[in-house]
């Protein structure tokens, strides 16, 4: 029965990772941008969410407002800053690193350095019995939310016009532009959605991972690991990669506690040695 618990833990964590990775994967897939501020979006989402909950007591409100705020931030960053460095990896790295620092300092300034763990919404703060153990309902809700988001994104990508444009843009931005698709608007929109997903991850992950200085960097690394393992630009890769990393991390810590620090990086290094473009990626 304990293994069921461990597996559920891995899957719920994996769903959180999927939310973080999906946004990053989309952004990279379309714009080839390695966004180092992705973890910052997560953290801003968590902090803003915590303030909203503190002031209004509503987790639901936080879940709606915080991601929208961050989406706006993302849109501004893309439109006025990142747009200029299309396909230039190294300037993008410097630019997003600069913003990482700026956001980190501002967050420390505004919210202070003490760790915050978001309170769970009342509806999901209990636990249910699984066999002879109890399991928090929140984590089960997290798995459900992750699946719903995955379905929405998949439907969007495969079944809508916007999604078709996205796929076209991923394949070849120039041709897509020639076909009359407003690539520029598409870019901003996608970047904003990516940021929104990260912030959503921040609020949803808040009761589990929490918010503190340094979490932005750690989450960013984690998201990158998932995206790379799953393959850049692939939604399916983000989901499978997320679940894989979530389970590996969980079971890795149980079987090899001494190696807890790199349970994620060893498999990543191994996978990349054999499949340099990740499990589902295309170069």
């Amino acid at each position, binding site marked *: 029965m304990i293994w069921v618990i461990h597996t559920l833990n891995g899957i719920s964590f994996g769903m959180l990772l999927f939310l973080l990775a999906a946004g990053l994967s989309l952004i990279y897939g379309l714009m080839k941008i390695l966004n180092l501020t992705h973890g910052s979006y997560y953290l801003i989402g968590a902090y803003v969410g915590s303030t909203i909950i503190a002031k209004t007591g509503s987790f639901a409100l936080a879940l709606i407002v915080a991601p929208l705020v961050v989406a706006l931030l993302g849109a501004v960053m893309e439109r006025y800053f990142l747009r200029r460095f299309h396909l230039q990896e*190294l300037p993008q790295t410097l630019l997003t690193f600069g913003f990482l620092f700026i956001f980190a300092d501002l967050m420390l300034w505004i919210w202070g350095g003490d760790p915050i763990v978001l309170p769970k919404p009342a509806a999901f703060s209990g636990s249910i019995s699984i066999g002879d153990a109890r399991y928090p309902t929140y984590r089960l809700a997290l798995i459900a939310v992750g699946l719903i988001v995955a379905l929405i994104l998949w439907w969007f990508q495969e079944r809508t016009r916007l999604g078709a444009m996205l796929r076209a843009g991923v394949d070849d931005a120039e041709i897509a532009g020639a076909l009359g698709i407003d690539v520029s608007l598409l870019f901003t929109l996608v970047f904003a959605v990516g940021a929104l997903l990260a912030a959503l991850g921040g609020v949803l992950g808040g009761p589990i991972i929490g918010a503190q200085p340094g979490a932005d960097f750690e989450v960013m690394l984690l998201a990158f690991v998932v995206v790379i393992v799953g393959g850049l630009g692939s939604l399916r890769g983000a989901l499978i990669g997320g679940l894989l990393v979530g389970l590996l991390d969980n079971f890795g810590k149980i079987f090899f506690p001494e190696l807890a620090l790199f349970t994620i990086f060893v498999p990543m290094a191994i996978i*990349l040695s054999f499949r*340099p473009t990740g499990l589902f*990626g295309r170069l």
Partner: protein
Amino acid sequence: MARIPLFIALAAVVFVALPFVVPSYYVGLTTKILIFALFAMSLDLLIGYTGLASLGHAAFFGISAYTIAVLSVKLRMSEWIAFPAGLTMAIALGAVFALLALRARGSYLLMITLALAQVVWGIAFGWRTMTGGDDGLPGLRRPAFVSDETSFYFLVLGLVAASTVVLVALIRSPFGLALQGIRESESRMQALGFNVWRHQFVAFVIAAAFAGLAGALYVYYNRFVSPDFLHVVRSAEVLIMVIIGGVGTLLGPAIGAAAIILFEDIISSQTQHWLLALGIIYVATTLFAPRGLIGLYRERFMARRKP
């Protein structure tokens, strides 16, 4: 072009005279700048000249430092054994990374080098009995002949200058030109009959060697080692130094190293919001000097020369 030897002579005079003219703290700071200049130049060989972007360069820097510290402090070996051992470990690790990473390109290469470096970091952090864990290993003694600041400074100056000469010679050599060709187009070089993989492998190992030398100097500079010597933040920092200075210019990264170390030193003493200031500088540099500081200089210098 004749300005270059003059420039070098001037620089030589400044560096040699420095310890006799400025206070000891600045001699120490210059030593640190020289060490990181070497570190940055070694990464530029990889990024700027071979076209391989790495986010794990601190692994070579750090493993050299740790080897020296562990051999000297824990096993009480002399520096004549420890120092070469450190360099050897850096070279060996470079070979291992190259073997595992060279199948990847672009963002994937960045990530796999990151992952490999994090594994090395994890070992340094976790293997408390050998490496001291997150407390690090203090108590390293400098060799007697460089126990004072000034002689250590001259040792570092000499080694960094010599390394620079070697690196310059390397990039101008046929091997170096081949690397640059590979950076431009691997397929073309392959078609021309070059063993692209072997060239890249050698470049990786040489870059690791010089990074290891920088790490060795840094551990003697600080007289301790700690896990942040090889943390990803360290790798990111040296990458930033290269980008800010100007990728593929060798001198640029050295200047980038000096600029960042000086900025950090000065700004962090003025305000606790030095991270914000540094972030703004990075953003501003990207917006106004996208080719780095060297690029900025060249543009303004070249622009003025136009008739």
